[in-house]
């Protein structure tokens, strides 16, 4: 046993004190890199930027951001929530994606922020090829756009501002249906 200990002890190589500093720097850098790597894992999993949080409930998203989007639930009762996301930076905003219970390929995404725009981290910009103004309840006007998806498909987008809230609705279904949904939401705006 003692011989084993002696053998083990002979493996140590004396180092110069000067190397201690270099080793310390290396260890701290490695630790910083490791921490950054661990921090990035949720983003790799979810594909979301680190400023965006995936929320389990709309209440959680509303509590996190102070943005209210409760009207979506009452307006689209029966639609299945696909994703609820929230961010507080650069501005507080929520994104809710819903799926039509009957036509599974029809999706609706509602974005709302407390600013005159929705952050790109939540609502990535899409190239639009057609835009017109359409009237909304309470004397408001919305912009209706047709946007091209990278997959080659097309979606409709309705965008308007009510008070300090800015809303965007993206829909893969028919335009007339989007306008109906948009008016439903706008009616519940303050």
């Amino acid at each position, binding site marked *: 046993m*003692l011989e084993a*200990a002696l053998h083990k002890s002979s493996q140590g190589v*004396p180092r110069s004190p000067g*190397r201690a500093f270099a080793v310390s720097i290396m260890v701290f850098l490695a630790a910083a890199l490791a921490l950054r790597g661990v921090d990035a894992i949720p983003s790799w999993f979810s594909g979301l930027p680190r400023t965006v949080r995936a929320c389990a409930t709309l209440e959680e998203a509303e509590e996190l951001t102070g943005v209210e989007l409760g009207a979506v639930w009452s307006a689209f009762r029966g639609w299945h929530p696909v994703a609820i996301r929230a961010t507080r930076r650069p501005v507080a905003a929520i994104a809710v994606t819903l799926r039509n219970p009957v036509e599974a390929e029809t999706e609706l995404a509602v974005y709302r922020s407390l600013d005159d725009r929705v952050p790109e981290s939540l609502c990535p910009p899409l190239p639009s090829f057609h835009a017109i103004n359409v009237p909304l309840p309470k004397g408001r006007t919305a912009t209706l756009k047709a946007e091209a998806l990278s997959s080659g498909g097309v979606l409709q987008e309705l965008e308007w501002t009510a008070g300090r809230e800015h809303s965007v609705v993206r829909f893969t279904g028919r335009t007339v249906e989007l306008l109906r949904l948009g008016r439903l939401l706008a009616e519940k705006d303050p």
Partner: protein
Amino acid sequence: MDRLAAEIVVHGVVATSVVALLIHLQPDLSSSARFRLWLLALLGPVWLAPLYALLFPARLADAFRDDWALFSGSHWTSVAWHGVGAGAVMVLLGAGLGLLLFLRDFVPLAAEAGSARARGREVADRSGVLTSAVARAAQALDTSAPALHMWNTEDAVLACRGLRRPVIVASTGLVRLLAPNELAAALAHEIAHAKWRDPARGWVVVVLRAAFFFSPGLQVAARALVQTMESAADDSAARAIGDARTVAQALLKMVGDRDDRLTAWQRWKKRAIEHRCALVLSPGRTVSVSAAGMAAMATGLALLLFFTVA
């Protein structure tokens, strides 16, 4: 409070990992340098987490977490199973592991302390063998000889006890087990503990471990710190008697060589002692870290923990 506890858990893991890596990559560090590094890993998270919460509340804001932090626990809240966030799960698992590590050491320690009391009755050192050996070892270590309490038991008992005035507790069985030079080495080891008031330091570590039972990093650092205190006492004993091999022989004789009769706790102690033997016998463990070097490492660790937010 929950967030502070979570920060202590995360900081403990980071500090302990960094110090363990620093020590692993520098096997030539002296015992005192190792002791100070483990102390850094033990105490750093305990006082830095509340200090940062008090002085830098902006660390908790999204701007700091998203733009500056190396790690932020809030980024893990997005990963969830059935509504339970991965961040919360990891902190809870860490806390459970911390409690297990604390109990793994504390329960056998308490049991051993209880059985030691009932082990034998105190007798006078009539032959004077131990008393004179203690006096010689104390002289070699340049310290006053602590009081000696001798127990009449066949078990090989040797310990340094007492918070304010440490005493050496030894048994008649020990005198029978060890050769005179090994006895001198073993006593020098315990007198080194008495010189540095290690029993009191040990109790401070136990109190810290109990208070922060939920931090696995702190539990690992505390255990390593105690091991380093033992190793430092081995080194002192080796210098005092001028022979590291005798110190190792005494240690190995006292722990015994029959694994099948040992409990899991005793087997761990045996492995730890074998590791200490390897350390005391290894040449060149002399690189100390200057006060400036320690300050630089403490600053580096403090910076690393500053940018680590639970």
